[in-house]
């Protein structure tokens, strides 16, 4: 059967070099391994909740309990200017999207190192490892979205057609998450400091993003600086589009989109560069 297979793929292994062509062929190999990407992503979801009583409920419980905590904290400290929208849903919409980002990043950063037994034995495109964590986090996001829908119904929030903007916003976010995951997982191979610093970094990053407060809470004169953070455009616009039925702020969204657009190829090139000697270092 194997001999009868008419078409054989000729593969040439050369010392690592970086040309647009090499990058394109990497994408080709990744496409060839798409089944592995799928199987491993399903596996991530399955394994995460195996032998846990609440199972997939955790995907919902995490942002939900965080929402309760922040609602409680801010109701004691004082009011956050939400422009009339109930605070719990402001917090939940932010936490929902932030959880996707932070879960994906936390898990994927260690993705290569924790699979060293595989990486040193079998070849497959290594970017699959961090990317499966991103996909698994996206899955959690979808599950938890149903709670958001429930909350919106509960608070009687009316939606407009602008809700469709959620799709490009999520696409931008996913690209950003994927490329940051690639960079951090590759860095983690050589510098384990990255993994250790991750919780701190994410904490700081969260407070630098309008997650538990709306963008309107930021004084105008800081905004130019504040919106350099690509997560700002994503989180704020997600909320605006969903809860206020507004059109997105194309300025902040453009910042996020441009940064993601730059990061996708850049992170992939860097990742492939690390991949070449990964098995020798990890």
């Amino acid at each position, binding site marked *: 059967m194997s001999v009868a297979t008419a078409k054989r793929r000729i593969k040439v*292994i050369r010392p690592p070099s970086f040309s647009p062509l090499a990058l394109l062929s990497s994408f080709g190999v990744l496409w060839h391994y798409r089944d*592995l990407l799928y199987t491993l992503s399903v596996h991530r979801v399955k394994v995460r909740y195996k032998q846990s009583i609440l199972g997939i409920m955790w995907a919902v419980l995490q942002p939900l309990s965080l929402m309760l905590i922040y609602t409680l904290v801010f109701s004691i400290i004082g009011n956050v200017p939400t422009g009339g929208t109930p605070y719990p849903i402001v917090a939940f919409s932010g936490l929902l999207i932030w959880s996707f980002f932070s879960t994906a990043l936390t898990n994927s950063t260690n993705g290569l190192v924790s699979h060293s037994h595989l990486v040193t034995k*079998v070849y497959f495109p290594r970017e699959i490892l961090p990317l499966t964590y991103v996909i698994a986090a996206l899955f959690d996001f979808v599950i938890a979205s149903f709670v958001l829908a429930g909350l919106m119904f509960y608070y009687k929030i009316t939606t407009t057609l602008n809700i469709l903007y959620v799709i490009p916003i999520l696409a931008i976010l996913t690209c950003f998450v994927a490329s940051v995951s690639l960079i951090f997982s590759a860095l983690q191979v050589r510098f384990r400091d990255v993994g250790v610093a991750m919780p701190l970094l994410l904490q700081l990053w969260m407070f630098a993003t309008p997650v538990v407060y709306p963008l309107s809470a930021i004084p105008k004169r800081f905004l130019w600086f504040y919106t350099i953070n690509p997560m700002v455009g994503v989180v704020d616009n997600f909320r605006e589009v969903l809860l206020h039925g507004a059109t997105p702020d194309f300025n902040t969204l453009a910042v996020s989109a441009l940064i993601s657009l730059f990061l996708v190829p850049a992170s992939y090139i860097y990742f492939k560069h690390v991949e*070449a000697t990964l098995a020798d270092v990890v």
Partner: protein
Amino acid sequence: MIDLKFDHVSKRYRIRQSDDSDTQNTLLRKLRALRGRKTDFWAVRDVDFEVRRGEALGIIGHNGAGKSTILKLLSNITTPTSGEITINGRLAALIEVGSGFHPELSGRENIYLNGSILGMTRREITKKLDGIIDFAGVREFIDTPVKRYSSGMYVRLGFSIAAHLDPDILLLDEVLAVGDAAFQAKCLDRIKELEKRGTTIVFISHDLGAVERLCDRVLLMKRGQVVKSGPAAEIVAAYQSDATLSSESVEVHKKGETNEIEIQTLSFCDDLGVSRPVFKTGEPLRARIAFNANETVKDAVFWLLLFTADGQIHCELTTELSGEQISVKPGSGVVEFRTKQLGLQPGIYFTSVHVKKRNARDVINYQYKSTMLRVDSDNLLQGNFYLPHSWSVTQSEDVDREYAGYENVVRS
């Protein structure tokens, strides 16, 4: 038709020198190490070979000769520093099976997971699922998490997945050393079947016997380079006779020797005292150690150690235990160890010979890896060693026809 081509391939590893100056500040030291001196180590240097379609190529050599690096380069786990590798067709490596298993998942789920890691599509796996399960013999437990599997089942399932890849080119490591003998035979059959179908095979192993049985052509590697290539039997023989290929230096062991007695040669011979390179399991064997004494040594004790290819002591022969004193006079002599039936399983064994005064700390003289012992067998028995045994059978009805004890010797 060339399936595999190494075109002047080299692989360099950079080893960072640790800074000897005792800087107190560890952070500073680490930062310095980052840009510090590096030593180059060429694991593979200018290796050039081709494998034709349907050919079975063996690669042998001592530990550190570059065999595993070749394997890693071939399977694309690491990239070459220079040169080019061309692979024509689907390549699969049968190395350390089961390393991609997840304990929480069922056997079936793991087949999909591991199969896709090895490069199969889901559709392909579904098609081969029954074959894989039956080959591994785990049908009853296929929906049980693999953490409940016995280690044997685990290994069998792992091999079974890999064996069903149907590659154009198959890379084999020491994988044949898995499972029990029956399963090993099954694996070998499967590999032979693939070979018959025209699969190109690259086999990297310490097991010279297996290499000789499976391969048409063999490359002998030494310090990252191919030093010889040719028909399997020829190269295996050359490897065995060339003890200097040893990666370890004999000089290291010369320390502390007093040299009143010098060990000269070690040879293995049969019952009649005829020296031979290969012995069969169950045959009589004599190991002769020729020595030359420079002065009188009272109560000398001789040792012969046999090592497996990976450097583990396999067994020990000594004049120590009998308690008798050997008094060595100046001049030459021979110590002979004898066994009626060789209990070693087929393989290559390295030797070391040393002589000491009883209860002394220092060695008088030492010889390491000067000779190899090769054991072969026509009839493979399972287990770690061959236990010489005889047998008889008795039945109550025909006590009269009781069989005399039959000696059961492996050699046919």
